[in-house]
């Protein structure tokens, strides 16, 4: 399980939060992540109960821990973000887990997030899988990146695009001169 640490970065935090067993998670995995004094787990899988990531704040450190019910060796896995019917993979990993470990823990400084993440806000469905000899896990959580959507580049563009398209819809409903 130590090899899970090679996943690194936010992917590790999100994976270990996504793996815990819940109604939509398969496999005997468990885990949690603590951000800004709040501990999140398997129940944070809805848009109104997400894992809140203050990506816009400096100096925040997330603590994470995760476990599997049995050692999973020769494992591979990935974590991705759902965009419609497609999953965009953001991290993958693999390892032997020769030590037959079943748990891991660590910390991650949110300051280490890629710069483009700091410009994003909103709610994201993050899915993860981890499988190998001895078992497999899969699951998903909701993650909310804190920030002012109205002033973020993507948020502002979406507002402008929505208004422009709405104007097009109104124009389409105008009667033509006969």
């Amino acid at each position, binding site marked *: 399980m130590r090899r899970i640490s090679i996943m690194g970065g936010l992917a590790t935090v999100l994976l270990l939060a996504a793996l815990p067993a819940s109604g939509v998670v398969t496999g005997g995995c468990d885990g949690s992540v603590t951000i800004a004094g709040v501990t999140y787990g398997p129940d944070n899988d809805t848009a109104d109960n997400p894992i809140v990531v203050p990506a816009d704040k400096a100096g925040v450190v997330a603590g994470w821990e995760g476990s599997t019910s049995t050692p999973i060796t020769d494992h591979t896995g990935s974590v991705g973000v759902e965009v419609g019917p497609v999953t965009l993979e953001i991290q993958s990993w693999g390892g032997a887990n020769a030590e037959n470990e079943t748990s891991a823990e660590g910390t991650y400084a949110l300051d280490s997030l890629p710069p483009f993440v700091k410009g994003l806000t909103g709610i*994201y*469905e993050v899915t993860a899988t981890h499988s190998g000899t001895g078992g497999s896990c899969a699951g998903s959580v909701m993650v909310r990146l804190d920030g002012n*959507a109205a002033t973020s580049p993507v948020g502002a563009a979406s507002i402008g695009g929505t208004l422009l*398209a709405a104007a097009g*819809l109104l124009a*389409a409903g105008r009667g*033509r001169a006969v």
Partner: protein
Amino acid sequence: MSGRPVLGVVSGLFFGLFLAVMLQQFGVLPLDTLSVVGLPVVGIVLGLILAATAPFGRKS
């Protein structure tokens, strides 16, 4: 149709897509299949209905 169906379809498509992104950015809905596919379809249907009924500024 007394309105502009092509404009309605194109505008409805982009209205749905931008609305899906806006709702995601404001933390209302994730970019799941329902929003990314469903909202543009609703937008297209809305555009066609508006083009068919042309309720705004009808000229004679």
